[in-house]
């Protein structure tokens, strides 16, 4: 019980003064009230998370015709999926997008959060600049993505600017409908998901720790690697989980920004659904889910988020 409540203690530890019995309903033993309190969330998760996933797993063994799906227990969908070289290529591509995007958003996100948390002195400016970061989210993902297309195109603003500056003679073809444009859009769309949790953990770092490091003669870089980064780990991890899962599941960005030339797993699933091949889509989704869970399990081995929070 104490271990669990620990999760919800804010960083400044002011709640030591709270009475011990806040979590207990009057007249009920601790165990019962604990179960009752967790019941609503458990039910919500059961109906909106566990049941749908169970359904997807079940359907992944079903069969399909041109216009219908029928209950069965067969391994056809998995067999086709796991024996096609395209599947491996596409999964590899998905992981590639996730890794590159993760690395770039991490560097960007950390830098931005660091600037906001440690260089901007007044709280007002911190809030103003932070809100500035969220402005792109006032419009939809698709619009933000599509607006890159005229910019990067063969006769787009980027190319015509570079040509008029004399940097290049021929328009750069790889700016649009390439891995470059896909990753650019991913970074644009998802960097904020890295900034927010990192900024959040950085704000909780006790400033006196940094002063202590400074007083003990640590250089700026040493303070960064020995104090700030270790204390920011939970934020980095939460941000990483956000970015990795979002990129691995995103199919719209890949479709639009690669001009349908590239594929990731999400696109395989969306193609299957479009062609009424629900069981095949479900099988692909199950494999994707397993992959994502594995990736997150690996991430969590590096940091115990429960302990760090």
């Amino acid at each position, binding site marked *: 019980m104490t271990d669990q409540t620990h999760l919800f203690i804010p960083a400044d530890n002011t709640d030591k003064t709270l009475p011990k019995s806040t979590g207990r309903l009057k007249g009920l033993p601790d165990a019962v009230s604990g179960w009752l309190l967790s019941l609503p969330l458990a039910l919500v998760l059961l109906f909106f998370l566990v049941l749908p996933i169970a359904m997807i797993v079940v359907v992944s063994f079903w069969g399909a015709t*041109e*216009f*219908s799906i029928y209950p069965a227990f067969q391994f056809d969908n998995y067999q*086709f999926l796991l024996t*096609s070289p*395209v599947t491996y*290529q*596409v999964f590899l591509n998905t992981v590639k997008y996730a890794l590159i995007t993760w690395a770039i958003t991490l560097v960007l996100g950390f830098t931005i959060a660091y600037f906001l948390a440690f260089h901007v002195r007044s709280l007002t400016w911190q809030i103003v600049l932070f809100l500035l970061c969220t402005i792109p989210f006032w419009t939809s993902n698709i*619009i933000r993505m*599509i*607006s890159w*297309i*005229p910019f990067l*195109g*063969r*006769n*787009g603003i980027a190319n015509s600017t570079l040509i008029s500056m004399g940097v290049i003679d021929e328009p750069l*073809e790889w700016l*649009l*409908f390439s891995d470059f444009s896909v990753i650019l859009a991913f970074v644009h769309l998802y960097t904020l998901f890295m900034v927010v949790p990192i900024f959040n953990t950085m704000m909780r770092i006790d400033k006196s720790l940094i002063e202590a490091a400074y007083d003990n003669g640590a250089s700026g870089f040493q303070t960064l690697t020995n104090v700030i980064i270790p204390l920011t780990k939970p934020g980095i991890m939460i941000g990483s989980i956000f970015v990795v899962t979002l990129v691995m599941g995103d199919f719209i960005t890949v*479709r639009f920004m*690669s*001009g*349908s*030339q590239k*594929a990731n797993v999400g*696109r*395989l699933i969306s*193609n299957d*659904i*479009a*062609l*009424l*091949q629900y069981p095949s889509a479900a099988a692909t989704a199950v494999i994707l889910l397993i992959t994502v869970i594995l990736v997150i399990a690996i991430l969590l081995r590096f940091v115990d988020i429960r302990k760090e929070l």
Partner: protein
Amino acid sequence: MTKKLTEKGISRRSILKGGAAATGAALGSGAITGFPTIWAQNIKDVTLRQFGTGVSNLNEVAQKVKEDLGFTLEMTALDSDAVTQRAATQPDSFDIADIEYWICKKVWPTGNLQAMDTTKIKNYDKIVGIFKSGKLTPESTIAQGTAPHTVGFVDGPDGKTFATEETGWMTLIPTIYNADTLGIRPDLIGRPIESWTELLNPEFKGKASILDISSIGIMDAAMVCEAMGEIQYGDKGNMTREEIDKTMAIFTEAKKNGQFRAFWKTFDESVNLMASGEVIIQSMWSPAITAVKSRGIPCVYQPLKEGYRSWGGGIGLSKSLSGLELEAAYEYINWYLDGWVGGFLMRQGYYSAVPETSKNHMDENEWGYWFEGKEATGDITNPFGDVLAKAGETRDGGSFLERMGAVACWNAVMDENQYMVRKWNEFIAA
């Protein structure tokens, strides 16, 4: 993109305003007559829900239905795949399905649609031969693929399999159709294009595109491979596994060599690719060409010597439609074939299932340009008022009979459809 949306918004709004004013005026003067039926009073309460692809599911049509027939038609525009999905899996979500004939082959066996009694269709006799016997003129040969007449009839009101000839029970009432070909940017190509082979010509490396809707894309690919002399198909619309493999191998190699700039799935995407100059040759639809042209950018719907790949659309009725709603639906179909919609669609470059009634709703210049392939005698505008051609210009592909007479194959659903879809996905992912 934003600019385009705004323009669209303005023109739609002004059209709606104009329409509303016209309705008001017509009502005021008592001009609306001619539909005196017993249920004329309560039909106003009827709402029919129609869905289909963006090419024909236009708010202008719904507006005109309200004016002429009095009931409400709710339009939903989706892409081809979504249309198939909805027709197959959500039978209660629509009353009228505006689908394509090749989709009918997938959807009809689900039993979500009901056959239509042709005796209730006033203009049935005037529907062009393609949809009844498969022949445009008595001498014409029937093209390959899923020709509309092969999925146009069933044996009776509850028939599950398609009949081979006219039976009096139609699956879909044909509404629009067209012969598709490649679209090109003449200003950026600068030489005549005559054959489907040009799509894979290395001269256009990185500047070609094809659509990513497997059932249609594979047909375009087949037209190209056949024109190259690489493959002789038994029936392009019903390939063997070996033919599918060969076709996709040729296209995959071209893709790996960087022939394609992008693949498109929706109408708007194809317009943007062409208008921005990203692509200068691609498979394209007729109204997409007119959309590029109306931005003042030259674009040609290039007739090719191997002929056209054709498609047809029609209206199907939901199984659950009955009583007053069913009567209203028949009234709607009769109205549809009566010519106003035909004229509207023909100004976009499509053909009406009953051309002769559309003639009453077009002026002589328009009819000559769109249907007879004559030189325009004055400005030709699309239904939204944009000028598409000036006096002296002729329609690419010539007259109705020349165009529809040169159809090489119809969009199709093959026996090996599932195999083809998998191969197509591999091509896209390769």
